[in-house]
């Protein structure tokens, strides 16, 4: 079975927010909410500073607490490549999943259900890349099957140094950042 994930090259990302706009347009994300966003992470000691610009979203965790804690089964793992999704009319809006996500990737849609990145499953089903990946002007994002050693994402991870976000939270995130 495929295991979809993303690889993002932080050396190329300039934080232009095209991915953010693409997601909002593609998925009709309500005003004032974001399914993906840009983070600037500056570390070090002056003058030896290091800045990483990242595009972030739901990590479609392999060990997803949001799915375990959901009392109705609204939060679930899709058969297609382990994508984590929410079935709107099963969701009661209890917000347990929002509290369980170490990345705060979820929000409550004004219609009342839990909302978040879907990896554009409707596009992936047709063999397309998620909207954010397809519009990135610097081509810093890659989407593919992490279980397939010959996929571009697997090859990038094998050849370049990378990290995921908050691995210590134990959720096994499926988005990796090349450094």
């Amino acid at each position: 079975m495929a295991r979809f994930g993303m690889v993002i090259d932080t050396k190329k990302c300039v934080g232009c927010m095209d991915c953010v706009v693409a997601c909002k347009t593609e998925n009709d994300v309500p005003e004032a909410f974001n399914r993906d966003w840009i983070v600037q992470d500056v570390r070090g000691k002056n003058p030896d500073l290091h800045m990483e610009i990242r595009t972030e979203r739901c990590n479609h965790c392999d060990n997803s607490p949001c799915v375990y804690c959901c009392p109705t089964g609204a939060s679930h793992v899709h058969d297609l490549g382990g994508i984590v999704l929410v079935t709107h009319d099963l969701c009661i809006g209890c917000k347990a999943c929002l509290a369980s996500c170490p990345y705060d990737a979820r929000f409550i849609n004004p219609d009342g259900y839990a909302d978040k990145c879907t990896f554009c499953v409707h596009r992936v089903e047709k063999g397309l890349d998620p909207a954010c990946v397809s519009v990135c002007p610097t081509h810093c994002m890659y989407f593919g099957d992490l279980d397939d050693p010959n996929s571009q994402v697997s090859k990038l991870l094998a050849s370049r140094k990378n990290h995921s976000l908050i691995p210590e939270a134990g959720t096994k995130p499926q988005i990796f950042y090349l450094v």
Partner: protein
Amino acid sequence: MNEYTTTRHNELVDPSLHIWGWEIPVYLFIGGLVAGMMIVTGYFIFKGKYKDKACVCRVLPLLGMIILSAGMFALFLDLEHKLYTWRLYLTFKVASPMSWGAWILIVVYPAMIASFLVNVPEYFSNKFPWMDKISEKLQQHKYAVKNIGVVNMLLGGLLGIYTGVLLSALGARPLWNSPMLWLLFLVSGLSAASAFVHMVAKRVDERELLAKADNGFLILELFVIALFFIGMVTSTKVHIDSALVLLSGIYAPAFWVFVLALGIVIPLIIQLLAVDHKIKHTPVAPIMVIVGGLVLRFVIVYAGQYTRWVDAAF
């Protein structure tokens, strides 16, 4: 230095999570209180005290059901997709404490109704003689009555424990990642229930007993709180920082003043003097304990949402 800037500003999530307002702390407090009331009722029934018409276990089940229903209503108010609430009861998700809770809330009602029927309060037995008949029949079966007592204690325990597990299962909020949280909420629930029963009980010996029990629970609660913090500050950096939110951070005044001093230590001193017959029993100490228990839930729920793994220096 570590400077973290994000373009995300989702309502209820940024700059720090605040998905749960007053409804959840109130609900968790009521869950604990009613759990304690069920345990006290169960104990009195098990001990055969129900035979006394003045036993407080006669009125507790009804009060418990009313209070718990108010708590469930608060929980309902918190849901964002209210029309779909019934979806909770189409499934049982074994990994979800929220699902356990939904079902526990359903099974505690029959247990409370059973304990209500063991010795129906006068008002009802006068109005509905058939209820009295059920009581009479039930009381002929000693073992059945004892079992009702045991079941009430067990389900009460489960209800109290679940209110803590609900939070501690949410690993993304470091302050809640404590194996002591269920015990803290259970003991706090028992102490609030003892305080409550102390106020409503008519028999002096029952009031004395509950005041003594409450003193025990308050002392135990102090130990559990100490262990809670020892566990936190000997854990990872995020957990240490989370503990500091309560110990010296923005929730410290509420925690030290309302939870510890006014909610536990001072009422404990008052009640220790009262059971020693140095001063008279008044409702002051029990009210302080109950309010302290409520503030404890507010502090834990609010401060927990404030703590997170990302950029963990609060």
